[in-house]
């Protein structure tokens, strides 16, 4: 390898750099996120990290980038074990993460962003502008990125911003660049540009840890693939020794849990049950979506949700699952198509409108978007319908606490009392508070986004039970989730979206984890 002399300090890169993850474990309340995971990234190679949601990829990235310390095990970089776990330490030692959401300052110029915090100075205090632009220009020329250095980052396309983020990492002499779903916001030609750039980096001895759901990209790029499942290392193998369907099988594991109902009905009865439900559904369709086109990806969606059914919707990031929720809750307006709710045309212009018409959304991140943390459980529940506890313009606090107590015991919310601040509750309990809100809103259609994300096993089972019970009372539930296994456990049907279109609609009872995973990823199943 002949390092290029004007590649800034890259010429120092003669020793092969290497990242070693040794027996790293990490536990969060209720979840063992990583169990003794080990892997090695060789210098100048693209190493792919794959696994379904919750397999531990992001936790591992956080530990490697110093954002979180491991409970046990260690990270060895360039033959030196991490002495402390902080982003500054990892960055100073040459590890850089380029996230899906860029960490650039929108109002600063391209050049200023690349050199931010480490700008060349004149007489120590003044920033040397011309030198800043000279260095940035040289770097971008070398990367063959054509961007006006004076342009504000806010004016760039997502693809350009990503390139600037990579340039920024290189200026900080990154030896290992971690790319997390880097193609999520890119078009086909931009993806090709990114791949060229990645290959160019590798030819200069820089390693790339590449995290993606797109197996096709991984098979084009990566030298080796590490597969995680349930926080454990499944295997690390050379890409040439694997096929896409083999990777899917390894991600899924050899024991794909199928439907696990409370009584594990015999197969024949399950089929009969499904048939019964589909017959009933023709009479009691609650939601019908016809040829809906909306947002950047959703194209020609047709979907029926009958009363009493729990319908799962799954797909990888950017497949349009989230946009369906946005449209139904009045947060995104359809371009074309028709939505019928209870047989009448439905077009919510905002959440208030949607709630008034019997639709309620439990957002993906309850702590951030769902609850008012400093208010009590009772206050959070009644917020969705204050008129219900108001008489002559005055809130009836007694009625409020009675209402809340009813839900606390009905949904078994783990709290000493209904006046408890929601901030002090666990993720699972916060989720239940939102379900109580849906009930208080008298919603006919519940949309749940990632309802079991980040909750412990017990809360997860309880949420499953509650959702099934809600459906049994005649409500329709739409569960939007990337956790396919979880959907298989408590939904009646699963819709699979890919690139904004429904590619399959199958009963959960016959649903097979590997098959659905293949469908979301667009991988042909090997027989």
């Amino acid at each position, binding site marked *: 390898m002949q390092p290029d002399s004007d590649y800034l300090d890259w010429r120092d890169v003669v020793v092969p750099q290497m990242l070693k993850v040794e027996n790293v474990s990490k536990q969060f309340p209720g979840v063992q996120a990583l169990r003794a995971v080990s892997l090695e990234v060789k210098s100048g190679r693209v190493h792919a990290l794959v696994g379904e949601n919750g397999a531990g990829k992001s936790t591992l990235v956080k530990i490697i980038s110093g954002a979180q310390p491991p409970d046990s095990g260690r990270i060895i970089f360039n033959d030196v074990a991490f002495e402390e776990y902080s982003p500054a330490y990892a960055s100073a030692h040459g590890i850089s993460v380029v996230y899906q959401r860029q960490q650039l300052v929108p109002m600063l110029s391209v050049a200023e962003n690349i050199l931010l915090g480490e700008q060349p100075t004149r007489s120590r205090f003044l920033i040397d502008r011309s030198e800043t632009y000279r260095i940035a220009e040289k770097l971008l020329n070398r990367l063959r990125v054509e961007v006006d250095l004076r342009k504000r980052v806010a004016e760039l396309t997502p693809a350009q911003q990503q390139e600037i983020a990579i340039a920024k990492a290189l200026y900080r002499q990154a030896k290992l660049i971690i790319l997390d779903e880097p193609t999520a916001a890119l078009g086909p030609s931009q993806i090709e540009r990114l791949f060229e750039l990645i290959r160019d980096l590798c030819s200069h001895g820089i390693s790339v840890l590449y995290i993606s759901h797109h197996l096709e990209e991984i098979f084009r790029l990566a030298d080796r693939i590490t597969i995680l499942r349930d926080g454990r290392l499944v295997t690390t193998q050379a890409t040439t020794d694997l096929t896409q369907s083999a990777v899917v099988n390894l991600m899924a594991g050899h024991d794909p849990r199928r439907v696990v109902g409370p009584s594990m009905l015999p197969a024949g009865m399950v089929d009969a049950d499904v048939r019964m439900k589909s017959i009933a559904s023709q009479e009691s369709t609650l939601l019908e979506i016809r040829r809906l086109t909306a947002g950047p990806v959703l194209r020609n969606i047709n979907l029926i949700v009958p009363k009493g059914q729990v319908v799962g919707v799954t797909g990888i990031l950017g497949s349009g699952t989230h946009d369906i929720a946005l449209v139904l809750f009045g947060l995104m307006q359809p371009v074309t198509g028709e939505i019928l709710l209870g047989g009448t045309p439905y077009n919510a212009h905002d959440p208030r409108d949607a709630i008034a018409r019997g639709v309620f959304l439990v957002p993906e991140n309850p702590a951030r978007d769902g609850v*008012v943390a400093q208010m009590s459980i009772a206050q959070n529940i009644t917020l969705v319908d204050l008129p219900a506890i108001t008489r002559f313009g005055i809130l009836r606090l007694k009625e409020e606490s009675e209402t809340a107590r009813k839900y606390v015991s009905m949904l078994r919310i783990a709290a000493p009392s209904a006046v408890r601040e929601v901030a002090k509750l666990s993720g699972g309990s916060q989720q239940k508070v939102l379900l109580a809100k849906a009930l208080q809103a008298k919603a006919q259609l519940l949309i749940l986004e990632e309802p079991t994300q980040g909750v412990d096993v017990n809360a997860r089972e309880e949420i499953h039970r509650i959702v099934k019970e809600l459906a049994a009372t005649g409500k329709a539930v739409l569960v939007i989730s990337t956790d396919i296994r979880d959907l298989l456990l408590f939904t009646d049907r699963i819709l699979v979206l890919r690139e904004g279109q429904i590619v399959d609609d199958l009963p959960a009872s016959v649903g097979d984890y590997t098959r659905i995973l293949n469908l979301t990823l667009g991988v042909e199943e090997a027989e």
Partner: protein
Amino acid sequence: MSSEKSVSNQLANKSQRSQKGPHLTVGRLRIDATTYGSTVVLIVGIIITAILQPVFLTVSNIANVLSQIAVLGILTMAQTIVLISGGIDLSVGSNVALSGVVAGLLFMHGVPLWIDCMVALLCATVIGLINGVLIAQNRAHPFIITLGMLTLLEGIAELVTGGSPVNDMGALATTLGGTIFFGIPTAVVLLFVVVVLTAFFLARTPLGRAAYAIGGNEEASYLSGIPIKRTKIYIYTLAGVIAGIAALTLSGILNAAEANIGTGLELQSIAAAVIGGTPLIGGRGGAWRSLQGVLLLGVISNSLNLMSVGANYQNIALGIIVLIAVMVQKNR
């Protein structure tokens, strides 16, 4: 869950909480400084002043303190409602000035006093309404919108008075500016009524509840169907109404109206609310808490007066006490 278990749970949580924040232990009683910081500072302030200056605890001095803080107290209620909703209103002081001037000028020109008061209140309300509409319709921060309003109102007040004060408010001086029963200043009674109503509004009305929700988490409130814009308009309008009441009270007490009379009141009302325990970040606080802050400011300036401390030193002392009071409640 057995009751015994839940009690022990609560105890565990309580001790966990008090370990986190600073606390004061008096015998077996443990006072959480992050919750009761301002109360503690207020009581300590009163005790110290009473020891140094026994005059402090005389009825006439207490009445004096209360009437001095009445206007600030009323105005702080307006600020409290706005702060809880996650906003801020810098125009309350200039609203007081302009509304007072409007009443004064009308009276000067022979318009009956009750009409003057109604027009002044209407003027204050409309100012609040305009604030609310601008804030609800724009992405700009309430800080900058109400700062613009502050400057605008000051300008208008200067213009209409021509820079000279109105020196007679007629019967307003003996009613709002006088005493009601047993020699209690009317302004103090009015303050009490405004505080009680504000507390009731915040705790017991849907709009008050919505203010807490929006201040706590605007996104979650929006997704819960709270009408964000409408709520904000109502809140700033209500703040305007309360500023109008403060304007009439101040005109009565001073028996005068002047264009620059409200200068600094907006910052004092924010300081009082924050010291009392209504933080700038929204979603928390209340009328009684804010009143504590007002009382604290009143007690301190009164005790400094009693000790004949010069005005400049008073400001330094006040500034230090504001900083201390806010430090002990850092969790907010």
